[in-house]
């Protein structure tokens, strides 16, 4: 339980990959081009006001100075100047706010789209994907990584523009004051760049690892918490703790490194600029002594070079922020790029853009009769491995009940998975009413089939919603009728909130059999033309089963039905019984044919009745 089957550790794909990811991230901002331009404009205005206001404030000081030396204190002029300054400051703040607000809006919309894209992707991932990737890791991408991207983008867009403008501003001021000095100040740029690049090279890997380890930890947690009772039952919390601690330690090490390395950029850049500052001070002083420069010139220069180095330091710091953002983006994009279910072959208008909307309305449609289902030399193996369904052929006539029996692991559920197109065939074909199932869209195909899966699944929501899932918008009476027929009503009635009882935590508050009854009610209400019942009543006790038997029979009536059950009683009345063994159909026919064949089926049948029959019979007759 240590090795996750497929940790999709998006190891940083090096510089090129990072650039591509960065560009892709930027593309997400494209719809907000105009907003971004507005943000830049607002920042420009902010910088302009913020730089010129102190200048005017200086003028105001001069008025005071004039008053002291010239004797006349022009209070009105001072007042007017200060008023202008105040207005400018107000304006600066206003622009700064506009900039912040516009950026925040854009960033939040991007995050919204990223999350929506992840969710949309989940609907298009093949079932096999979920066998390989752990849930917690997918969840981490949608929450932690998107959260990281959003926070980083917000900070980046806010500061990067400002820093770049400040850099340009101070550079042009320096050029204007003294081109030579400006060139000297520019010496820091290559040094700063080298420092930043060196650090960035180290930190990228740490960031990638930090976020993939976060995903891994998320996966461990999700899995252990989901199965915590098993761990407890065996007193094996220690084992889980060990695995968890390992990941936790790794997360600690890698985030401490990422934090440390990226945090080192700023001090190092300050150091570079300090060295420059010292050099300028010393050289400048020597120049002054040599008579080549004035003190004032040196001081002005020092001031501007400091002003210049500040944004450089900020931009350097942002490089690592970008890296963290890209590390997360890579993980989100990796999920978004995962191989999808092959597109539906049919070009029915129902598909494409409006796929979801139309699919839902179709669901509620009335039941068409029949459905002739033909399996023709169907072969399939999970993940391309050795086939678990081999060369299976049979025909289910409209309205017939087909029972599939066989040892556990024989491939019964797999047949259903293929009919539902949860997985695609390796070879052979399945047709419904003569049409290959791959010629219809998946949604259209599935809308024809009502099913009860082997694993009873209920989702967070009321019991009513859970039943209604098979036919949204069903009337109260219909829901009630389905619930009554399947004995759901029987236990729901004793619940204080009845059908409004909210199920949470994977339906923990119901017994296993009750959950199964709900899924039966769901299929009952859905009423599609083909019915699939995979061990539908395996956890339901026999007394209850007898009571819902009629309902089940009524349900099967007029529908082509596939029934998988170990209880041969359920199987006896089937029109066609398929006996499976190791993926093959070893016998087919009806009950009597198969019994008289004295093959697999009759052995299965005997096994069932070998044990208790006599004593039970005896007791029965004794009543």
């Amino acid at each position: 339980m240590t090795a996750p089957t497929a940790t999709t550790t998006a190891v940083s794909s090096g510089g090129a990959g990072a650039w591509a990811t960065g560009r892709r991230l930027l593309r997400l901002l494209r719809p907000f081009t105009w907003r971004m331009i507005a943000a830049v404009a607002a920042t420009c205005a902010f910088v302009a006001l913020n730089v010129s206001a102190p200048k005017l404030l200086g003028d105001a000081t001069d008025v005071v100075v004039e008053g002291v030396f010239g004797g006349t204190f022009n209070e009105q002029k001072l007042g007017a100047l200060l008023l202008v300054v105040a207005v400018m400051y107000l304006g600066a703040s206003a622009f700064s706010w506009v900039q912040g607000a516009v950026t925040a809006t854009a960033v939040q919309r991007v995050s919204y789209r990223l999350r929506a894209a992840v969710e949309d992707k989940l609907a298009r991932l093949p079932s096999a994907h979920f066998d390989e990737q752990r849930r917690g890791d997918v969840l981490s991408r949608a929450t932690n990584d998107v959260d990281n991207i959003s926070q980083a983008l917000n900070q980046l867009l806010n500061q990067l523009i400002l820093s770049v403008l400040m850099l340009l501003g101070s550079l042009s001021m320096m050029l204007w004051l003294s081109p030579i000095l400006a060139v000297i100040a520019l010496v820091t740029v290559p040094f700063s760049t080298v420092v930043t690049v060196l650090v960035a090279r180290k930190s990228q890997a740490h960031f990638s690892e930090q976020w993939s380890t976060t995903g891994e930890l998320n996966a461990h947690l999700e899995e252990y918490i989901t199965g915590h009772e098993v761990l407890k039952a065996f007193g094996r919390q220690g084992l889980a703790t060990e695995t968890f601690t390992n990941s936790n330690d790794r997360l600690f090490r890698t985030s401490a490194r990422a934090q440390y390395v990226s945090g080192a950029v700023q001090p190092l850049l300050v150091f570079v600029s300090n060295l420059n500052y010292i050099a300028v001070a010393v050289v400048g002083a020597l120049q002054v002594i040599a008579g080549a420069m004035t003190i004032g010139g040196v001081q002005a220069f020092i001031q501007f070079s400091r002003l210049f180095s500040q944004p450089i330091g900020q931009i350097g710091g942002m490089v690592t922020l970008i890296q963290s953002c890209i590390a997360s983006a890579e993980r989100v994009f990796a999920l978004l790029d995962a191989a999808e279910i092959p597109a539906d072959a049919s070009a029915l208008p129902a598909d494409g853009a409006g796929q979801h909307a139309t699919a839902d309305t179709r669901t509620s449609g009335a039941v068409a009769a029949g459905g002739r289902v033909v399996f023709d030399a169907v072969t399939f193996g999970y993940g391309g491995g050795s086939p678990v369904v081999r060369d299976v052929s049979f025909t289910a006539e409209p309205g017939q009940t087909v029972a599939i029996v066989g040892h556990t692991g024989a491939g019964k559920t797999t047949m259903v998975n293929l009919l539902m197109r949860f997985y695609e065939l390796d070879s052979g074909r399945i047709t419904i009413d003569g049409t290959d199932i791959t010629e219809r869209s998946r949604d259209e195909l599935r809308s024809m089939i009502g099913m009860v899966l082997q694993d009873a699944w209920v989702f967070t929501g009321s019991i009513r919603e859970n039943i209604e899932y098979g036919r949204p918008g069903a009337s109260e009476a219909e829901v009630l009728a389905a619930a009554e027929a399947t004995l759901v009503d029987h236990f729901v009635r004793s619940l204080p909130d009845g059908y409004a009882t909210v199920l949470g935590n994977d339906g923990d508050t119901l017994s296993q059999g009750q959950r199964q009854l709900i899924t039966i009610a769901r299929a009952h209400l859905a009423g599609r033309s083909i019915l699939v019942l995979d061990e539908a009543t395996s956890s339901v006790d026999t007394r209850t089963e007898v009571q819902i038997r009629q309902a089940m029979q009524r349900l099967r009536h007029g529908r082509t039905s596939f029934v998988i059950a170990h209880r041969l009683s359920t199987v006896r009345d089937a029109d066609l019984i398929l006996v499976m063994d190791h993926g093959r159909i070893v016998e087919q026919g009806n009950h009597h044919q198969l019994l008289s064949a004295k093959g697999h089926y009759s052995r299965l049948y005997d096994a069932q009745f070998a044990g208790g029959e006599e004593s039970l019979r005896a007791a029965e007759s004794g009543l």
Partner: protein
Amino acid sequence: MLRGMMMRLLAAHKPAVLAIVVLQFVQTTANLFLPTLNASVIDDGIVKGNTDLILRLGGWMAAIAAVQVAAALAAGYFSANVAMKLGRQLRQELFAKVQSLSSQEVGTFGVTSLVTRATNDVQQIQALAVLVFTMLVAAPAMGIGGIVLALNQDVVLSGIVVAIVPVLVLIMYVIVRRLVPLYRQGQVLIDRISRVLREQIIGANVIRAFVRQAHEARRFAVVNRELTRNNLQSALMVAGMLPLIMIVVNLSSVAVVWFGGHRIQAGDMQLGSLTAFIAYILQILIAIMMAMYVLMTAPRAAVCAERIQAVLDTSPAIADPPISRAGLPPGRRTPGGTVEFRDVTFAYPGAEAPVLEGISFTASPGTTTAIIGSTGSGKSTLLNLLPRFLDATSGDILIGGHNVRSLPLHFLRDSLSLVPQRAYLFSGTVAGNLRIAAPHASDADLLRALRAAQAEDFVRELPHGLHSAVSQGGTNFSGGQRQRLCIARALLRDAPVYLFDDSLSALDYATDARLRQALAPLTRRSTVIIVAERIATILDAGLILVLDQGRLVAQGTHTELMRTSTVYQEIAASQLALGGRL
């Protein structure tokens, strides 16, 4: 809450925190010192034309710059280290706590919320810690330094500085107060995003089968929109904070010039003080902005701390008994496996009607006790009382003569081996899953258990045998295979008591029979309690308990019950009806 948590966690890192403070102090001082030296370069060096002095001072400046960068790097190292250690510890504490919670308690938080708390919420606290460590010395030093210097220049004019402080505090207070509930809601929404997605993954096949992708997309979109709106609101508020503070500080510098001008005019103040004053105000502004970065992160971190603390503060309803081990038998588990229920009643917390009522029976070692009853009659609940996943509301449960509540949990659970109704496997390998029950079992042991559980054949057929991969929940195995792996897991343990909760339901009858045959020798000396739906499965059980709506309506052997219990007769009749024969 946040402060308390930080203090508690930092207590273990006192030397490191001290080092950070000292290093930051050195760093800040060095930074302030450079301009001073620069001033002497000009005053003493240039004015006196002393080239030597200039070079020497230049050397000193370089040395100080070196000290500064070294101190800053070291401080950064310790900050990163300590901050991430806090995170690691919080995660570890959370995980330890979660493991001691019962299903009900886990349920009150929800799986995804607990996961979010241990990752996302902890991250926020880490981030705050890093910021605090960075600003720890610099911000207060600059702020207080600025104020002191301002006071030094002109006390009256400093009134303005003193006046803006409460205004700034007020602004921050108002914004932070509105931010806290927003962030609280925001974290809950992250939980919900996770929850919806988790359900979409678990229920993928049902969603697809019923073609409800659109419905699910809408469900998600609602939460996604809410989260976006929430995040946007808090982002806008944070975006508004900086301009507001700038306005206050900048306007105060305007005020300084206005009032300062008048004071200078009146001869109450020096001209130079005015310029100095504006510089100090700028310094204060920078300090405030640094503090603001902390303050922007603080509300979210505070909310996260609150959420984490809520988990840590949950005292598990089911815990080890406080008493000493005096009365305990030696060894790791109870010697005898006799299970006795004495008038046990159980009601789920919050539910009015009990699920089990007045249950009394004794199951002895070497016998099999079967429990049969309708769906929802309380069979699983009854089994869950034994390992104390739940505690009886009244009545006593004894194992080997000891009340389960008087035994340490690990001791109690070591005496039991459980096959749960829901076959749950962890991602990893087949062997890894089996070893959950017996970590030191050899491969031969594993194969023996698999053989008894009728799982050896298919495990051997797997490409990597025992070391084949298992995906999360065991989804790459068939339902029956999963169940048998769980049975093998339980059989690996040589326990005094075995509990099988409807564990044969997904097995075909032939396998079921073989399995029971193989089980007999393994569990010969143990107490076996088995929940089953099929009468065939329990025919030879020494004791059959018939549960009906939480009551034990009959107990006895099959033949006795067939004579005396109408419920049992009904069950038997139903199986006959279903089978036509049996």
